[in-house]
Structures are given as structure tokens and as C-alpha cells.
């Protein structure tokens, strides 16, 4: 797509190229900020923070359901990034995916150390739309996202619903069974079959 010849420059194509180039630039900036961080330069981490904190805070907030807790988690996330930046491998993950997974896992860990959650929190969180378009050039994993969503759509609706709610809501099996008013054994079978189906659909099975 980046190598489209000038002759192709119909409006749609031109727009796509500009967006892609923004995404590439944003990604390159983030990667170099991560490299700087890995070298022990604090300004590198500050740059990573400026580029990604709103995104990562959104993830922490989404999963923790508590603004104050989410800020504590976010703090931990950037301290982890400071310590782990050297292990970031651009060949394995896009920089924003790498950071997003650190944030998500930190938020999940926080939830696992909490006692029972207020059911209202989870219900409120589950009403947040997952399909909102994002303007941020950094977040463009369009192809990967399109593939994943299409594979999720191909699953039994109950399986895909269970997977989405779990991944984005940070629920345990027990919580998921309660939310979906379904026996635990059935939920486990939905998850395992759904994840197997997803893996096959994505071509990794």
C-alpha cells in the first residue's frame, strides 16, 4: 500500500497513504523512545509516556473500573516499562501492543489481588462500546484487528461474547459465570472451544 504509484492517487488511496504514513511515523517515534528508555535515559520514558499514557490509562481504567486505582496501576506500568524496555522486540510485537498488554496484565493483576468486585462496576464497564473508531495513528493495527474481529464474529455468539467480556472486563471464570447466568462448566467449555476456534481461524492452529 505504501508503494502505490503516483498514478493511483484517487482520493481514497491518497487518504489511506497519509494515514499509513502517520501511523508509521508514530510507530517509529515510539520505538525510538523505547530504545532511549532501554538505554537508561529518563527523557525516553517521558516521551513514551507522552505518546501513550492516555491510551494505557484508558485500558487501566476500563479493567479496574476505578480512577484512583487506575492511576496507581498506570504508575506501575511505566515503572515496568522503564525496567523492561530493553526486552521489547520490534520483530515480535508492535510497540503499542507491547505496552497495551503490559497495561492490561497489570490491571488484571490488580483485580486478582482485590476481593470481590462491585457487580455494578462490571456491568457499567461492559456497556462501553468496543467498536469506536480511533483517530490515534499509533493504534492502527487495522489489518490484525479486522482479522481478529472477523474470526470472533465467526464463533458461536456465546463463545465470542464470553471471550470479549473476559479480555476487556478482566473477569474470572466465577465472575463470568455470574454475569452470564450460566453454569461454570458450560462457561469453561465455551471459552476453551471458542479460543481453539479463534486460533484455528487466525491460522495458528
Amino acid at each position, binding site marked *: 500500500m505504501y508503494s502505490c504509484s503516483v498514478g493511483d492517487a484517487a482520493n481514497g488511496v491518497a487518504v489511506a497513504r497519509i494515514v499509513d504514513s502517520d501511523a508509521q511515523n508514530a510507530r517509529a517515534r515510539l520505538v525510538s523512545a523505547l530504545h532511549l528508555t532501554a538505554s537508561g535515559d529518563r527523557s525516553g520514558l517521558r516521551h513514551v509516556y507522552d505518546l501513550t499514557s*492516555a*491510551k494505557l490509562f484508558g485500558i487501566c481504567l476500563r479493567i479496574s473500573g476505578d480512577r484512583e486505582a487506575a492511576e496507581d496501576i498506570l504508575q506501575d506500568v511505566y*515503572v515496568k516499562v522503564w525496567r523492561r524496555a530493553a526486552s521489547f522486540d520490534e520483530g*515480535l510485537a508492535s510497540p503499542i501492543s507491547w505496552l497495551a498488554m503490559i497495561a*492490561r496484565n497489570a490491571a488484571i493483576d490488580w483485580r486478582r489481588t482485590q476481593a470481590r468486585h462491585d457487580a455494578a462496576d462490571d456491568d457499567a464497564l461492559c456497556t462501553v462500546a*468496543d467498536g469506536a473508531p480511533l483517530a490515534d495513528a499509533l493504534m492502527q493495527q487495522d489489518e490484525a484487528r479486522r482479522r481478529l474481529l472477523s474470526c470472533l464474529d465467526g464463533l458461536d455468539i456465546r463463545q465470542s461474547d464470553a*471471550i470479549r467480556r473476559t479480555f476487556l472486563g478482566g473477569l474470572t471464570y466465577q465472575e463470568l459465570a455470574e454475569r452470564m447466568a450460566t453454569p461454570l462448566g458450560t462457561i469453561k467449555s465455551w471459552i476453551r472451544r471458542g479460543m*481453539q476456534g479463534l486460533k484455528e481461524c487466525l491460522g495458528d492452529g
Partner: protein
Amino acid sequence: MADPTLPPDRAGLAAELALGLLEGPDRAEALRLCLSDPDFAAEVEAWGHRLSPLLDATPQHLPSHRVWNAVEARIADRPSTGQVRSLRLWRGGAIAAGAIAASLALVLVIPRPAPEGAQTVGVSQLADAQGGATMAISYDPQAGVLRLGPNGLQSGTKSPELWIIPEDGVPRSLGLIGADGGKLAVEARLRQFLRDGMTLAITLEDPATAPHKAPTSIPILTGKISII
């Protein structure tokens, strides 16, 4: 991507861990598998990559300024200058990848004590920057015992010695470790240092005079402890 030979049960467990569904003993068991079974660990990581696009659409929110201020305070690392000469050397070595055999990322997981005194087991993983050599360590904070995986680090007459380097920058010997791994009891006075952010390092030393007061060589492996 991940090893297709992973047994279905293990593959299912990897998916469950990646989704965050597990809690309590099931979660601890899956975290242990992450260390002992590289195929399992690879599958968990592969799930992270597969599912991460779902996070793209999470709405963004601006955190308050206190977050960055706190991060900055926590990464400020100013060991007193008289003590850090050797640490500087070590850090220099750790950063210049070519200067040492491997630079390790160490992740030490110490689950919070479960209610009713359920067993608490910490696990950790060493993996080098090139994705080659890995070394698994688990830590049981109750017993104060490190369990080390095989590392094959024996070299001629020298033996690998494990060091913990806390905030003051002074390396303290945790003792010699065998090339085949095994258990290492941590001295009571050193247990306080096995926590988030501290550096672990391995140097090759003369076994006859160990444990040493200070390392005599640049570490062949280093890593920071991160409690997840």
C-alpha cells in the same frame, strides 16, 4: 508461532491464563508452567499478540499529573557515588550487549499471600535478549529459598555466583549456583532485597573462595526483578 505439539489441556490453560480468567491456585500453577515449559510460555505470549488488537478501541482518558510525578520519583536512582563504581561498570556492560554473553530480563512473580495461609510460591524467568538462553528461577518467600533451573554456566575452573544489587548499588553475594540449578537458601539478612526493581546478576568466580564480598568480573547475566 507457538508449538503445535502443546497438549490440548495445556493449550487451553495457556489461553485461560492469557485471558486472565484464572485465580488462586490455578493461576499460580499456570504461572509456574510459564517457567518450566517454554512451549506453554510461548503460547501464552502468542495469545497476547493475537488478542491485543481488541485493546485498540479502548477509549482514551488523560491521567492526572500525579501519575508522571510518581513515576519520575520511582525511577530516580541515585546510589551514593562512592559505592557505585562497580555497578557503573556492570551497567555499562549490561547496556552494551556485545560486551557480555547475554543480557537477561528477569521477571519475578510473587503472588500476594493467599488467605488462610495457602502456600505462597514466587516464580521468575530469565531470558536473554537474543531469545536464546533462558533460566528459570522460582522464589518461595516463606522459606526464603530460590529454586534455579539448569543454566550450563560452568566455565572451566570458574563457577557462577548469583548477586543481588539493591538501591545502594552494592552487590551482595547470594552464593554459588550449580550448572544444573537446584535450591539456594537465601540468608535471612539478604531476603529483604528480593523485591521489585532490584538487580540480579551472575558472574563467574573462583568456587574455592566463595561467597565473595564483591564480584571480580563483569556479569555474564543480569536482570531486574519485576514483581508482576
